[in-house]
């Protein structure tokens, strides 16, 4: 990580102390996690205080950490039965659950400072509430409006204080939040034209979900932190 970013990190640490915790990065990017209760205070300071000057919010995105780090293909005899039958799919968690794992949904903000030429990333976990909720940053960066609508549409994350939180990308009358990891890739409904009724009708999907390439995680020693240092040294 460059010296400039280390200076910024020091300043952030001095200003916010324990409010923000730095996440280590392998590719020289500055990432912080913070509590959702502190979001508005920190975001306002990052935007308005001259030493930070993050006047632009480039991106807001939702993340669902449900299956993070899980392997889909743990069976040993999958070659007998073919790829997709050997795949183990993650458990389906109903949206009606009383509460979620506190580390399941997160909102990630990408900030850009034009005057100092800095980028940084903030990550806020939404906590256990169902529906997940964080405070809206539309009043701080007006450009967040549609990005938050998108995160609401795709992940069902509510943004408290958003002026117009409607669905944006999915169809009128869509049910569910399609980018959640427990939402099937194929979707739940398909549309077709019904000649008898003379209109387009919704039906449950007729395609079986298939996995062409299973998700695997290989232990690659080239990227292991202790070995990497040994090789470089």
């Amino acid at each position, binding site marked *: 990580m460059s010296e400039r970013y280390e200076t910024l990190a020091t300043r952030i640490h001095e200003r916010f102390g324990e409010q923000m915790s730095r996440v280590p990065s392998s*590719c020289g990017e500055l990432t912080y996690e913070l509590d959702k209760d502190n979001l508005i205070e920190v975001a306002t300071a990052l935007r308005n205080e001259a030493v930070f000057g993050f*006047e632009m919010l480039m991106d807001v995105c939702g993340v669902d950490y449900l299956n993070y780090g899980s392997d889909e293909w743990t069976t040993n005899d999958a070659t007998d039965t073919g790829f997709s039958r050997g795949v183990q799919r993650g458990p389906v968690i109903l949206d009606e659950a009383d509460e979620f794992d506190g580390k399941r949904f997160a909102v990630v903000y990408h900030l850009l400072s034009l005057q100092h030429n800095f*980028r940084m990333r903030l990550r806020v976990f939404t906590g256990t509430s169902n529906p997940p909720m964080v405070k809206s940053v539309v009043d701080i960066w007006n450009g967040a409006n549609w990005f938050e609508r998108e995160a609401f549409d795709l992940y069902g994350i509510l943004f408290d204080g958003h002026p117009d939180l409607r669905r944006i*990308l999915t169809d009128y009358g869509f049910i569910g939040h399609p980018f959640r990891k427990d939402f099937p890739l194929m979707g739940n409904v398909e549309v077709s034209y019904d000649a008898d009724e003379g209109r387009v009708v919704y039906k449950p999907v007729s395609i079986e979900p298939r996995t062409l390439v299973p998700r695997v*995680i290989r232990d690659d020693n080239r990227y292991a932190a202790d070995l990497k240092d040994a090789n470089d040294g």
Partner: protein
Amino acid sequence: MAEIQSYTMNFGPQHPAAHGVLRLVLEIEGETIQKADPHVGLLHRATEKLAESKPFNQSIGYMDRLDYVSMMCNEHAYVMAIEKLLGVQVPERAQYIRVMFDEITRILNHLMWLGAHGLDIGAMTMFLYCFREREDLMDCYEAVSGTRMHATYYRPGGVYRDLPETMPKYQESKFRSKKELDRMNAIREGSLLDFIEAFCERFPGCVDEYETLLTDNRIWKQRTVNIGVVSPDRAMQLGFSGPMLRGSGVEWDLRKKQPYEVYDRMDFDIPVGLNGDCYDRYLVRVEEMRQSNRIIMQCIDWLRDNPGPVIADDHKITPPTRVEMKDDMESLIHHFKLFTEGYCVPEGESYAAVEHPKGEFGIYIISDGANKPYRVKIRAPGFAHLSAMSEMVEGHMLADVVAVIGTQDIVFGEVDR
């Protein structure tokens, strides 16, 4: 005088000036817009979710289909995000090729924009002129990747193959005389670089032609000057980038400020507008085409003198050559592994942004160490621009909505993703 009541009007989704599938619900008082509510998502294909279900390399082709008039720039951001996570070094020649094709793509995009924007507000000829030049650039795409649009040419670690020594030529047919055929193939006799160089020598003259038609044209100015004015503060507040931000007078270009690949070695200028209206954004984009032309010329010179590899030699990430594969066991294994399982990317997250013709196009990848990305987020510049539509058209006339859609350079492939 009869009392005029405000009413709501539907614009699109199938309107020739809506640049695809934009549905606008307009609240109008007389002919003055009070509020515009864009309804997007009609082209939503869940690209991000699809990318999460495929090995990294299989999603490069999806990137072409986001902003389908600036294909290679989309790929560029995606492969850069993966390269950041993998920590792979791209050979210098590949970096020059990427810069050259990014700039070709910028000209492609701006030509499409200029033609469509002109057509929307009454300059029919522009469309024909622009598509004449676009055709040649499409040929460059075809020569290098085999397809005219959806190239899938950039790969993590470099580009798929080196620039070809021959250009594809027009074939004989009963509709073309021998003389006509020779004329069409005359500039295609040399290598791809010769073809691009010939284009670059011709292109500034073409831009002069466009400017003769538009820049001082009274009708063009009436339609664009003082339309859709955005102040620099508002532009930053709304998350604008690219020509939309520069048109408002903010000097910000990732190619200069956060240079990637070999942009720091290129000599070019950043045009900046003064008033932040549609006319200034027009001037900025036209000047950008000239500057892109300069960059391409510099790349051609370098590429002629410096042959070399165009893709990293790490066969854990890049496929071995066909020849190696035929008689080397290890290459065969690498090939098999790469095209079935793909490669695993170390755990972590990265955000790679490029100066896309439309603004800052960013790809945010979260990897959990698997052969597929855990989360891919596409930061599309058009999405942020379109969200400011209501603010930009408020108080303008109905016909100006079309001018503002044009000036925002909206393409629904990237807005809806």
